[in-house]
């Protein structure tokens, strides 16, 4: 288990990125998450970046990777809590967070994951344990 705690809310995993990330930490997080998604059969992954003052291409890569991995494991990834200054900078930077959904906060993120899963399954069946 790495430095970044991964919480479980129902069938969703919540990661809150509070610290400045560097290579080792980012790799650890991706490893941990992959393991947890499989172990908990999570259907959603929420990454809370409200504490991040900066998102550069390194973090962008990490978010894209996590989204990619989750998709392969049939989980939806939502990034929440992006700060306005960060959003404006990302757009200027030209960073395309394709395949990464975004929501304003954890509540809306959970709602979004719910909607997507329900739409995929056409109902309440199959909620992960």
């Amino acid at each position, binding site marked *: 288990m790495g430095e970044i705690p991964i919480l479980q809310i129902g069938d969703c995993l919540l990661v809150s990125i509070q610290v400045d990330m560097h290579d080792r930490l980012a790799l650890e997080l991706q490893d941990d998450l992959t393991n947890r998604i499989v172990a908990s059969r999570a259907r959603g992954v929420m990454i809370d970046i409200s504490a991040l003052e900066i998102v550069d291409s390194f973090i962008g890569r990490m978010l894209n990777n996590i989204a990619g991995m989750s998709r392969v494991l049939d989980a939806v990834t939502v990034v929440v809590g*992006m700060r306005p200054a960060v*959003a404006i900078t*990302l*757009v200027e930077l030209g960073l395309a967070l394709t395949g990464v959904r975004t*929501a*304003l*906060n954890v509540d809306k993120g959970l709602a*979004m994951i719910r909607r997507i899963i329900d739409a995929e399954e056409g109902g309440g069946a199959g909620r992960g344990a």
Partner: protein
Amino acid sequence: MSETAETIVPALIERHHQKLLEDWLTCQVREGVLRGGQIKEAELADQSRRFLGELRRSAASGRTLDIAARQWAPAREVLEELVRHCAAQGISPSQTAGFVFSLKEPVFALLQRELIGNAPALAEATWTISALLDKLGLFTTELYQKSREEVIRRQQDELLELSTPVIRLWDGVLALPLIGTLDSARTQTVMESLLEQIVASGAEIAIIDITGVPTVDTLVAQHLIKTVSAARLMGADCIISGIRPQIAQTIVHLGLDLDVVSKATMADAFALALRRLGKTVTDIGSTGGDALRPRRQRN
């Protein structure tokens, strides 16, 4: 400039500065210097004394004509203060410069009195002081210009703020009516306002109305796309409305891909927004139900 002029002029001013000041003040009254403002006589006298004082000192420093030099900084400061006062009171730039030019008459008179009989020295001294006061007068005009530019810049900023209101159209729906051209400075302000409102209201739909945007070319389209992308990162989807027929044609001709839903009118965009939120508008009394009211609480 000969050594004579460089030392004589400052020396003469120094020796007779009291009388020079008196003559200057008299001259100012006669010529109506800085009249039209609210600068009182006592204030004007004070400014004049200070300016003359700095002039004496700077001229004596050996850098008589180089008013950009460090030695002239105090004199420049006096003029800066003067320009600020005058600009604030609507005194014209020429009138303001007139303050400096009005010093010529008493100084010429002084030089004539003291250098009488020495025609070459008089000629050179007159030229030197004239050149000096010309420079200082022009400097004043430049300062005036800069202060005006500062005012314009400040007003532009305020205009920018005023012209990008973000409206809460409904629960969860924001409207952003853009008026005027969309350049990069404007786009920054627009993005900041919009994103702030998204955070404050939790809105998930933003309608960007471009009825008031005269032309949409590649650059404007890029700015719109940036704004839409930024809003998306904050979890809000955008709808562009107010697309005039000519704009639609331009977009197609330029091969622009806006990658966002667009509607001709704000009304259409709003109807779409409501549908997305799972709401509909019905006539009062047709079903006996209440008119559509914004939800007061979130579930």
